[in-house]
């Protein structure tokens, strides 16, 4: 009881102590918040993450939306841009020597949590520190014929993680980043030279990527990115410039799609407002829900990055350099920038100006009929699809959200990694996406076995004719197989991407028999040589890459046989384009060891003679007729 009395006497002291502890707790929390911001703004040598202009970052969203935060956190959108740290890099930096780098070998080191690389300076065009070894003309110093100096720089940021990872180093000039001369292929677990990772012709001038992150990548690979170069990228030599590049958050985070959320977060600190909204099950006007926008506006949200666009004029480029892009989710995308869509604006003054500056401006992004052919521009394909542009009922208008979901739903039982691969909704992994509207389509519509790959809507109407990042992806412009289109554009059609051993004449005949499509006139080769062989031998580099990839596709191998593919892939593995060679080699690895005796005999469409040898005359003739124009994809 004596003890209890002692407590009673000091009750007022206890209250005082409790108040002091509470005040101290609040103070510490406040200081921690301030210190975090100060720490990031004090970072030198790389762009920084600073909440600004109504953006609050995913850390704020997480408190109320844990499930959505988790699914986003496991997506490749989040890891598009990361600070280079041992836990974020896919490759090992711990005393690794990389020979497969543009220029000389690259040496990687890890010191604690810091990652360092020593390599040939990609910006040393004059070849300081001569060593008398002449590098290839498309590598640093190639024009002067001397090796550039070696530099050692800290690797500070990464781009990507799904298929490839690119590494950026601090140049030492303000926040401007340079790119390591090799990139890491995630699936292959190996380094390749940077120049080999893009569809670019051999030879040609060395292109420095220095400043590229600050001026270009920041727009789409971060949330609310602002280049803040002193003048827009490319307007003067990069090393005469300074940059104070910043973003609200690295990676494509919540506010990239839902818009700046400070007002939403503030309003919903009020629990009465929150619960009134929950109980009434009504939307919240303080935030944008892309999936609930009209189809055109919701697709615009994705299109802000997944489209081919340009600044309409220099003034808008200057504004974006200083303040970031003006588009906010819910806006009309085309009102904030010039969407390059040759089928709609080929004759516009903007397009004429772009073509005047670069004749290949459209050619390396679009097929001749205006269908987009470079990856990452799915929006351009969507808006040209009949399911989008001809639709009159918003409820039956295709949008990105008809097939994709940015948050894996609770009823989706697939592993997260499977969902994250393409972020398809569970219903859209098969024909479900299409039968949402085409529910009355006859089961015999495809004329293929019901469980066969030929019965997949995707395989016929979204074939793999888009290229980028060393692979092909499905065209996002919904179309029907057409030999006429193949003849007009050079784009392989869906039938011949699976039936690799068949001619265009064969396809034309079936399309005529099954769907009443008029047969176009074909020349002798088109009538007698397999369409895939024709493209592989005489197509341009982009076309060759598409067919080489198809030759490694299990569905195509099943439909076309595998024994004859190896020699053609071996031939393609000697292609002058690094990217085509890489894809051919990858497809080759899907095949069993080549056995000459298994080659189909007397297959004129495959240019194999009765004795099992190839018709070298025709092969050589077709190779001589190859479309050797320089193909440079904007990937």
């Amino acid at each position, binding site marked *: *009881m004596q003890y*209890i*009395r002692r*407590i*009673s006497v000091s009750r007022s002291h206890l209250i005082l102590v409790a108040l002091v502890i509470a005040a101290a707790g609040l103070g510490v929390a406040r200081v921690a918040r301030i210190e975090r911001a100060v720490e990031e703004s004090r970072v030198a040598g790389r762009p920084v993450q600073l909440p600004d202009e109504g953006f609050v970052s995913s850390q704020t969203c997480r*408190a*109320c*939306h*844990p*499930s*959505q935060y*988790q*699914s986003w956190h496991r997506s490749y959108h989040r890891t598009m841009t990361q600070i280079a740290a041992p836990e974020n890099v896919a490759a090992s930096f711990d005393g690794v020597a990389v020979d497969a780098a543009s220029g000389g070998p690259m040496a990687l080191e890890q010191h604690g949590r810091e990652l360092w690389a020593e390599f040939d300076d990609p910006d040393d065009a004059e070849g300081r520190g001569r060593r008398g070894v002449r590098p290839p003309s498309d590598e640093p110093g190639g024009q002067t014929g001397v090796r550039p100096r070696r530099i050692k720089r800290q690797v500070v940021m990464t781009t990507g993680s799904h298929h490839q990872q690119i590494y950026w180093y601090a140049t030492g000039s303000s926040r401007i980043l340079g790119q390591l001369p090799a990139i890491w292929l995630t699936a292959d677990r190996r380094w390749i030279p940077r120049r080999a990772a893009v569809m670019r012709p051999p030879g040609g001038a060395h292109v420095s990527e220095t400043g590229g992150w600050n001026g270009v990548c920041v727009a789409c690979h971060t949330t609310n990115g602002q280049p803040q170069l002193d003048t827009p990228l490319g307007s003067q030599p990069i090393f005469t410039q300074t940059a104070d590049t910043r973003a609200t958050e690295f990676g494509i985070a919540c506010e990239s799609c839902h818009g700046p959320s400070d007002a939403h977060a503030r309003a919903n600190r009020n*629990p009465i407002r*929150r*619960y009134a909204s*929950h*109980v009434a099950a009504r939307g919240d006007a303080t935030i944008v829900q892309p999936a609930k926008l009209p189809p055109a506006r919701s697709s615009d949200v994705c299109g802000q990055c997944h489209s081919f666009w340009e600044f309409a004029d220099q003034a808008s480029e200057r504004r974006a350099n200083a303040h970031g892009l003006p588009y906010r989710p819910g806006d009309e995308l085309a009102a904030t920038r010039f969407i390059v869509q040759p089928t709609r604006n080929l004759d516009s003054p903007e397009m004429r100006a772009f073509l005047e500056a670069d004749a290949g401006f459209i050619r390396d992004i679009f097929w001749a009929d205006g269908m987009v052919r470079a990856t990452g521009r799915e929006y351009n394909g969507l808006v040209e699809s009949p399911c989008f542009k001809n639709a009159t009922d918003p409820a039956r208008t295709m949008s990105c959200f008809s097939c994709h979901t940015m948050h894996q739903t*609770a009823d989706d039982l697939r592993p997260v990694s499977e969902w994250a691969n393409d972020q398809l909704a569970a219903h859209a992994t098969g024909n479900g996406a299409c039968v949402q509207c085409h529910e009355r389509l006859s089961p015999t519509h495809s004329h293929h076995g019901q469980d066969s790959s030929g019965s997949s809507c995707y395989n016929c109407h979204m074939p793999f004719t888009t290229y980028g990042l060393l692979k092909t992806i499905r065209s996002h412009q919904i179309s029907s197989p057409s030999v006429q289109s193949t003849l007009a554009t050079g784009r392989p059609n869906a039938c011949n991407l699976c039936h690799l051993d068949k001619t265009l004449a064969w396809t034309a005949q079936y399309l005529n028999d099954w769907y009443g499509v008029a047969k176009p006139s074909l020349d002798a080769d088109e009538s007698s040589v397999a369409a895939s062989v024709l493209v592989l031998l005489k197509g341009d580099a982009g076309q060759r890459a598409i067919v080489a990839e198809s030759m490694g596709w299990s569905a195509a191998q099943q439909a076309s046989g595998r024994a004859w593919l190896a020699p053609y892939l071996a031939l393609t593995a000697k292609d002058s384009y690094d990217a085509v060679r890489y894809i051919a080699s990858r497809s080759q690895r899907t095949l069993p060891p080549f056995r000459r005796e298994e080659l189909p005999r007397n297959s004129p469409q495959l240019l194999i003679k009765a004795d099992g040898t190839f018709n070298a005359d025709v092969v050589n003739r077709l190779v001589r007729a190859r479309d050797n124009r320089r193909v440079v994809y904007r990937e």
Partner: protein
Amino acid sequence: MDYARRHIRFGWWSLLVFASAGLVLESLHGFKVRAYLDTANETRRLMWTLAHAHGTLLALVNVAAGLTWRAAPSMPANPRLTSTSLIAASVLLPGGFFLGGVAFYGGDPGVGTLLVPIGAVLLLFALFSIARAASASR
């Protein structure tokens, strides 16, 4: 009324119930029940864990209150109200957390969680009354 006996009895039975609830939660972990463990159900997991923790702790508080009642020199000013408040708090706090996890809204628990602040107020009142009585001189 024998308040001491009331709280000791309530406390031990309550402890049995909420210790059993702990076993149920462990089983949900053991069998990897998605309705409890999925990241989408993080709020449910938190609420039910809180229900278990608060229920168990309050059961022990009831036992302690019963023992204190026996040993203390004087009763709280309003023993019936104090006793009822403590027992109500011991039901409302874990019950509110439990209901808050049955149906919820993202990071917000369900409306059942409104029982929690009511229980908290009752608990504070009961604790204050008992503490004051326990502090009084003989």
